[in-house]
């Protein structure tokens, strides 16, 4: 079984540019989560999809962040325009069902650096 795939693994962009991160969850996993970790801080929740619907987007920092999940398969997270404070590692995770029953499978993350 393939795991959760994220790309790119690294991205360095200038302030004001746009970046799009992609996540391919494990096939059949309806639940998809985005998290972000800034150096030394917690892994912070951004949002949760169930299939193609946003279940919870309470962690999205502001309207510069846009997440989509086309057809309930892969998901993208777009940051436009990027700011310095957006730097961090963005993790995607998927779950077969309720997370408290099945747990998360994380991808390896995308390290975003905004300069």
């Amino acid at each position, binding site marked *: 079984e393939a795991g959760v795939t994220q790309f790119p693994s690294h991205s360095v962009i200038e302030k004001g540019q746009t970046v799009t991160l992609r996540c391919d969850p494990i096939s059949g996993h309806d639940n998809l989560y985005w*998290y972000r970790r800034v150096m030394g801080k917690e892994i912070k*929740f951004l949002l949760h999809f169930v299939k193609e619907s946003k279940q919870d987007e*309470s962690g999205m920092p502001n309207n510069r962040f846009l997440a989509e999940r086309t057809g309930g398969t892969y998901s993208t997270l777009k940051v436009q325009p990027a700011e310095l404070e957006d730097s961090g590692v963005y*993790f995607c995770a998927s779950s077969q069902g309720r*997370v408290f029953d099945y*747990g*998360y499978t*994380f*991808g*390896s993350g995308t390290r975003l650096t905004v300069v």
Partner: protein
Amino acid sequence: QQQVKQSPQSLIVQKGGISIINCAYENTAFDYFPWYQQFPGKGPALLIAIRPDVSEKKEGRFTISFNKSAKQFSLHIMDSQPGDSATYFCAAPGTYKYIFGTGTRLKVLA
């Protein structure tokens, strides 16, 4: 928004020693508390988890101790090995998601 307080931030242990990482959480509607282990360049992976109908769960050299009344739980790594060097995150249940701690970077010296 619930917070999970994790300590210490970093830990250095001699090979064969005991590593202890502590977490404290706020109110939660569900009872399932996992620990995740993360190696450099990889995503966090589930290490061990506990449902607090028990006060302790052991899997090999890894043990979770849980104190529900104090809202605290801890990870003990017995006979720590250099291969255990990683970042460890505790997590507490939020609303259909986990809330993670700030992580503990563990280094086990050979």
